[in-house]
Every structure is written in structure tokens, then in C-alpha cells.
């Protein structure tokens, strides 16, 4: 363990890779601080630049974006009162009031320090639990892996904001997309007579199309609906280091609890920064001696919010690396990066690519340090950049998406794939279909089919999935997650009906 980590550190410690981590963190912070841009979009935009890189460089750059992105939401949250990413919504609750009281530097400093500690604690969780889970899952055979993927998909679909049917349908659609082209037996499926469809769809243009178009064009629609009140903000911020140290000294338990919540939530498929954010804010309020201060500009609220959302980064790597099951949308895209670099995340990754696993740990640690330095030194600039209007951002990002899709294989067909899936993604988003299960289905589809048929080739009986204890457990959990979502859906519906009746 120490050996491969040192080897990885030596690879990540080269000037070129360090430079990439710095660029990644800077881009991540910028992406996270622009309202409506999100961490996921930042990752998607940087993704194509990794094609020409070796795996360690590419993954280090992406990890940098990841770490920077989760912390970037602080800037717009504190300065504008608008969360840069959904995972920093609760940062606004206390960060913005503190800035309005004339202490924006204190709010930013507390946020950055909490983000740093959250990332460190989550790396510790990853280092400890990643190999444990991986070595446990080494015993998984095709039946267990199939059942685990089904469980992950149902869990993600079920957590899709009260839209279980649409979530499940989105997951199935995602899986269906992966069936286009030649299959494992070299049989052609759904090519509709077009030779270009024979090799199927590349994951990247499909993912970018589905996610980026809906997100970017959705931002344009929102601009039309609500007139932007981009205010002139005072970006002349000074960080009171002494006061922040004092603030943080009184937040040890809150930091630890929020970071652990973030790591745990990050490790669960289907959840992510937003869930971690609300959960830890709620817990911090419940444990606080002064819950009435929450929402008025208390350091505890900022610590709870930022420590938890940054801890998601490390936590989300646990299932991705150990099981090959991405925890959330940014992780699904990270998994796409690894696959494109010829690395299949899963239990074998710890055996076959220990240096790369170590490089991820090292990049997370270095990225956290770079993130603190960048945030503290360049906060004024980030505050200015966060004001870039969507009208400029959208065409530029769309162009980058197109070039990224093309650069993957120097193939113009991939731009058309991006375009078609952009239209599909936008229409599905307009129909309130959750897109995360769809993207997860696209990422996991090939593996699910391969494992399912390997299981059936080893034993033709479908009942084997129920007679093997672990696969039966995962399938039972899948059914339980659907039933739980149904219960929640009904509860939400009842509340909606009651609210409607009151309005009448």
C-alpha cells in the first residue's frame, strides 16, 4: 500500500502533472462559481483535453476539476447569494448573510477551510474503505455484479425527486442506448441500415448531449423567465486569517460530522453533493446549542455545508473505484474518463492499476491544497468571473462540447450523436424525466449485459440469481428501494393534494 502510494506520488509530483492539477482546480473553481454551470459541466468541458494524455495525467486533471468544482460554489454563494452548484445551496443560507453583514472575507475563508478539511477527511475514508470494499467484492461473480448494478440503477431511479416511474424508465432507456451496434457475439443490433451505427454510440457524446444541452438550454430558458438581477458586487475581499482559525477551532466536531456525512452520502449510489449538503446542515442545526442562529450568518452553517459537499468527492470515489458503480453524475463521467483511458474501474483496478489508484489519492490531496491556495489568493478574480453571463457561456460551452466529441475519435458522426442526444436530453428534461439514471444506464449498460449473459452461460437458470445469497440480497434491496420510493411518491402526492385543497 505505502509502496504503490509512493510510486503514485512520484508520478503525480512531476511538474507537468502538478501543473495539470493546478489548471484543473482553477477551472473547477471557476466552473463551480458560475451559477448554472455546475461541477458536472466543468468536468465535461475538460474531459476532451485528457484524450491525448497518459492515464495518470488525464485522471489528475479531472480530479483537480472535481476538487475545485465542489469548492467553487462558495464564491457565488457568498458574494451573489446564488449557489454556484446545487451542492452549495445551504452555503448561501449563512454565507450570504455573513457577507451582507460586511464579512464576505470571513465567510469565504471559513468555506474554503471547511472544504479543505472535508476533502482531507474524505480521502482518509477512501484510502481506508476503498481497498476493503474492493477486496470483499473480489468474490463477486457475474450473478452478484448483475444484481448490484440492478440495485444501483433502481436506487438512483428511486431517488429521482418523486418520479419513480420516469426514473426507472430513464435507466432502462440508458441501458437500451448501449445495445446499439455490434454486441459481444458480433451480432449487429439496431443499426437501421446506417453503417455508422454499427460501432454503436460512444459514451462521451451521448453523455454530453443528454446532460449539457438540457442544462445549458435550460439556463437560457430560466433567463427568459426570471430577469437576471446581477448586481454590482464588491469584489475587494480580504481574508481575516486569524479570525478564521479561531472560528474553525470551535467547529471541530461539526467539521468531522459533516465530512463523514458527506463521505457516506457520496459513497451511496444516486445521492451526491446536494443531499449531503442538506443532511449535514440539518444535523449541524440539530446538534447546535444555538440553532436559532442558523440562516443568519453563523460559521457553523457554512462549515456544515462546505465540509460535507467537498467530502462527497472522496466518498464518491469509493463505489466507483471499488465496485465500478459510480455514486453520482460527476462520478459517472469520471468513470467514462477512466474507461476511455482503457481502465475499467472495479475490484480488479486495485490489483491491476494500483499506481493509478494511488495517483487518484495523491491528486485529491494535492488538489485540496491547491484549492485552498487558489481560493484564498484569487478569490477576487473568481468573484468577477462568476458574473459571466449565460448568454456568452452557452454558445462557448456548446462549441467546446462539439469539439470534444469530435476529438474523441476524429469522427464527425460523434458530433451528430451529440446533437441527436442533445435534442433527446432536452425533450426528456422538459418532460420532467430525471437524467441521472439515464446517464448511469449508459455508463453501466455494457457491463450489465456482459455480466448477465456470463451468469446465464455458466448456469442457464435465472433462479440462480435468487439462490446465491449476495445476489439475492442485492435484488431484495432493489425491490425495497422501489417500494420505499413508491411510499415516498405517495407521501409527496398526498402533501401536494393537501396544499392544493388549502389553496382552493
Amino acid at each position: 500500500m505505502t509502496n504503490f502510494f509512493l510510486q503514485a506520488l512520484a508520478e503525480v509530483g512531476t511538474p507537468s502533472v502538478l501543473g495539470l492539477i493546478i489548471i484543473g482546480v482553477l477551472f473547477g473553481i471557476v466552473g463551480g462559481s458560475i451559477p448554472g454551470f455546475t461541477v458536472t459541466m466543468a468536468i465535461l468541458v475538460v474531459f476532451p483535453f485528457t484524450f491525448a494524455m497518459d492515464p495518470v495525467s488525464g485522471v489528475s486533471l479531472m480530479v483537480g476539476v472535481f476538487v475545485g468544482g465542489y469548492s467553487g460554489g462558495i464564491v457565488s454563494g457568498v458574494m451573489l447569494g446564488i449557489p454556484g452548484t446545487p451542492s452549495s445551496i445551504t452555503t448561501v443560507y449563512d454565507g450570504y448573510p455573513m457577507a451582507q453583514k460586511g464579512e464576505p472575507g470571513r465567510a469565504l475563508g471559513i468555506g474554503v477551510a471547511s472544504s479543505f478539511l472535508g476533502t482531507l477527511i474524505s480521502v482518509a475514508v477512501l484510502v481506508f474503505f476503498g481497498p476493503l470494499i474492493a477486496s470483499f467484492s473480489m468474490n463477486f461473480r457475474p450473478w452478484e455484479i448483475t444484481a448490484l448494478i440492478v440495485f444501483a440503477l433502481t436506487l438512483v431511479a428511486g431517488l429521482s425527486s418523486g418520479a419513480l416511474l420516469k426514473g426507472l424508465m430513464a435507466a432502462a432507456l440508458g441501458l437500451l442506448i448501449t445495445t446499439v451496434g455490434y454486441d459481444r457475439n458480433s451480432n449487429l443490433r439496431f443499426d437501421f441500415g446506417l453503417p455508422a451505427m454499427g460501432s454503436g454510440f460512444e459514451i462521451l457524446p451521448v453523455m454530453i448531449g443528454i446532460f449539457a444541452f438540457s442544462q445549458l438550454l435550460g439556463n437560457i430558458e430560466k433567463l427568459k423567465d426570471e430577469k437576471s438581477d446581477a448586481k454590482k458586487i464588491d469584489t475587494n475581499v480580504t481574508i481575516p486569517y486569524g479570525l478564521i482559525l479561531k472560528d474553525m477551532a470551535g467547529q471541530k466536531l461539526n467539521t468531522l460530522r459533516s465530512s463523514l456525512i458527506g463521505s457516506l452520502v457520496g459513497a451511496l449510489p444516486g445521492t451526491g453533493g446536494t443531499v449531503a449538503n442538506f443532511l449535514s446542515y440539518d444535523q449541524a442545526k440539530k446538534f447546535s446549542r444555538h440553532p436559532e442562529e442558523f440562516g443568519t450568518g453563523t460559521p457553523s452553517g457554512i462549515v456544515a455545508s462546505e465540509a460535507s459537499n467537498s467530502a462527497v468527492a472522496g466518498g464518491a470515489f469509493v463505489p466507483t473505484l471499488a465496485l465500478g458503480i459510480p455514486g453520482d453524475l460527476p462520478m459517472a463521467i469520471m468513470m467514462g474518463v477512466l474507461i476511455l483511458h482503457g481502465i475499467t474501474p472495479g475490484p480488479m483496478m486495485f490489483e491491476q492499476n494500483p499506481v493509478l489508484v494511488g495517483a487518484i489519492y495523491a491528486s485529491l490531496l494535492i488538489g485540496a491544497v491547491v484549492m485552498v491556495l487558489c481560493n484564498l489568493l484569487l478569490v477576487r478574480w473568481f468573484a468577477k468571473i462568476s458574473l459571466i453571463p449565460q448568454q456568452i457561456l452557452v454558445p462557448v460551452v456548446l462549441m467546446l462540447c462539439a469539439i470534444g466529441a469530435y476529438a474523441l475519435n476524429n469522427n464527425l458522426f460523434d458530433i451528430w450523436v451529440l446533437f441527436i442526444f442533445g435534442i433527446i436530453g432536452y425533450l426528456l428534461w422538459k418532460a420532467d424525466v430525471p437524467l441521472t439514471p439515464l446517464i448511469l444506464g449508459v455508463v453501466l449498460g455494457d457491463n450489465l449485459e456482459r455480466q448477465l449473459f456470463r451468469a446465464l452461460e455458466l448456469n442457464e437458470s435465472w433462479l440462480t440469481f435468487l439462490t446465491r445469497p449476495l445476489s439475492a440480497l442485492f435484488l431484495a434491496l432493489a425491490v425495497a428501494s422501489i417500494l420505499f420510493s413508491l411510499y415516498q411518491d405517495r407521501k409527496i402526492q398526498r402533501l401536494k393534494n393537501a396544499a392544493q385543497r388549502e389553496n382552493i
Partner: protein
Amino acid sequence: MLTLTKDRALALALLLIVAVMWMESGDIRPPTSWQPYGSALFPRILLVVIGVLSLLILVRSLWVNVPERLGAKQLVTEWFQSRRTILALFLLFGLYAALLPVVGYIAATIGFLVASLALLLGIDTRRKWMINLTLSATLTIVIFVVFRYGLNVWLP
């Protein structure tokens, strides 16, 4: 007459896709003697799942009372009219994809950026034009240099 809602439109569109793909799945080569299951099984399982879920969405949407407003045709027209900017942006992107192999990366990208920035930012002042042209040209060339010389990736 039933009003066309989001859920109903979604369910009907998906049922149509399922029907088309089910027919297309008939062309997939059948399993050989050593294969217990053929290549069509997995997609067919998924098509059944999507079909059943779409039906459930359709049936559920019938239970929800929707005030009768416009007919399907008027609703579609209204939908398209209220999203003219978005549709224009899609059109520009489609044109960009079509023009890339014809006129090359630099001309197509500058054209796409100028047109889409003009669409979203507006072209009513000289300042907006300046921002538009400077940004479009600079970004196009920077990206070209980064990909071509930094990453050794040839753009069309």
C-alpha cells in the same frame, strides 16, 4: 377531447419508439446452438420494461384532471413558439455540425459563435458586436492552437 400533457406526450412517444425497436429487433441474428440466449434478449427485456412503464405513465396521466385548454395542434404550436430561441440554437448547432466538414473548423466555429452570440446577446449596440466578434475569433483560434499544437489533435 383529451388534452395533450407532458406525460401523455412522453408515454405515447416512447410507446412508438418501443414498437419500432421491437420490430427492428426481429432482424437481430437468432442464437446459435452453443448460446443459451440470443443477442435480442437483453434489448427485448429493456423494451418490455420501457413499454410497461410508459403504459403506467399513460394510465396514471389519465387519472389526473387537466383543465381542457387547447387542442394538441395548438399546444404543439404554442410550445414551439415559446421556445424560438432554443430551437434557433439547436438549428445553429445542426448547421455547425453540417458545415464543419465542408468549410473546416475555423470558419465553421467562428460562424457558429458569431451567430449564436448574436442570437443570445443581441446585436443592437456596437459594443455587443465588438464583444461578439472578439470573443468568437479569439476563442476559436485559442482552441485550435491548444488542440493542434498542445494536444496533437487534428480538427477538421
